């Protein structure tokens, strides 16, 4: 299936959970926050939240800013 990850097309195996995506991106254990179709998904729900074709996913982190 294909999702929109941070505004770009991203391929993922069918039935993948958010935690699978995080692992694929190499962010496991990192300080990130995830939004799925404009809703924040708390970290504790990443393993149980299934992604679907066409989902809009945002993965954010903190960077330098004033």
């Amino acid at each position: 299936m294909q999702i929109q990850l941070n505004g770009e097309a991203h391929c993922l195996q069918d039935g993948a959970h958010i935690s699978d995506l995080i692992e694929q991106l190499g962010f496991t254990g990192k300080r990130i926050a995830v939004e799925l179709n404009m809703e924040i998904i708390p970290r504790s729900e990443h393993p149980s939240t299934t992604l679907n074709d066409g989902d809009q996913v945002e993965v954010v982190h903190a960077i330098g800013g004033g």
Partner: protein
Amino acid sequence: MSQLQNDALVIAGKSYNSRLLVGTGKYKDLEETGRAIEASGAEIVTVAVRRTNIGQNPGEPNLLEVVSPDKYTILPNTAGCYTADDAVRTCRLARELLDGHNLVKLEVLGDQKTLYPNMVETIKATETLVKDGFDVMVYCNDDPIVAKQLEEMGCVAVMPLGSLIGSGLGILNPHNIRIIMESANVPILVDAGVGTASDAAIAMEMGCEGVLMNTAIAAAGDPILMASAMKKAIESGREAFLAGRMPRKKYASASSPMEGTIV
């Protein structure tokens, strides 16, 4: 000095010894960021929230590993947001990112050239965020009426600009900042515009509760040294404010006694 020992900056019920708040943008690398923040003595440190494909190479340490939430109060900002909706969304992501931490710096910008705050959108965002349980430190223009409204809406600190973000022009309208402070019941901090140490000292001498800056340190020739200069400027400005300056006089007043001169 006894007065200063109890002179904490209190924001949303938490006490801070440092009245200098610093940003983490525009540094050469994370190492310089960490050293500058250390030298500044700041306890509240702002960060931006961005997509993970922006601003990070794989394997590079994360900003929050250098500026640890265990050591600093992290103040996520909404920089880059031009609408209330985007700012609220960013704050909610920041809260998730920081494990439920509620303190945010709200800034909703008007245009890219001036980065001047859009106060209509800022007020809309404030309303939602306060209702949603956020402790909002709000970046705003130096309009005393708007500043009062933001306080009444429940902001925990009101932060008028000294001058445009990143301009280094100093405090262009000290009179307005004074009017804002006169009736304020929450801390008033100057946010944006400080260019060098004297600008920070002036803000503190006027009675501001603190100063938030980024570019003045990060864009200095030697950011670490400037961070140290800013720390001292904030402290000396605060002490001068507490000490109470002498009145301004039109004519001279001799410091040495007139009696006993040999002429």
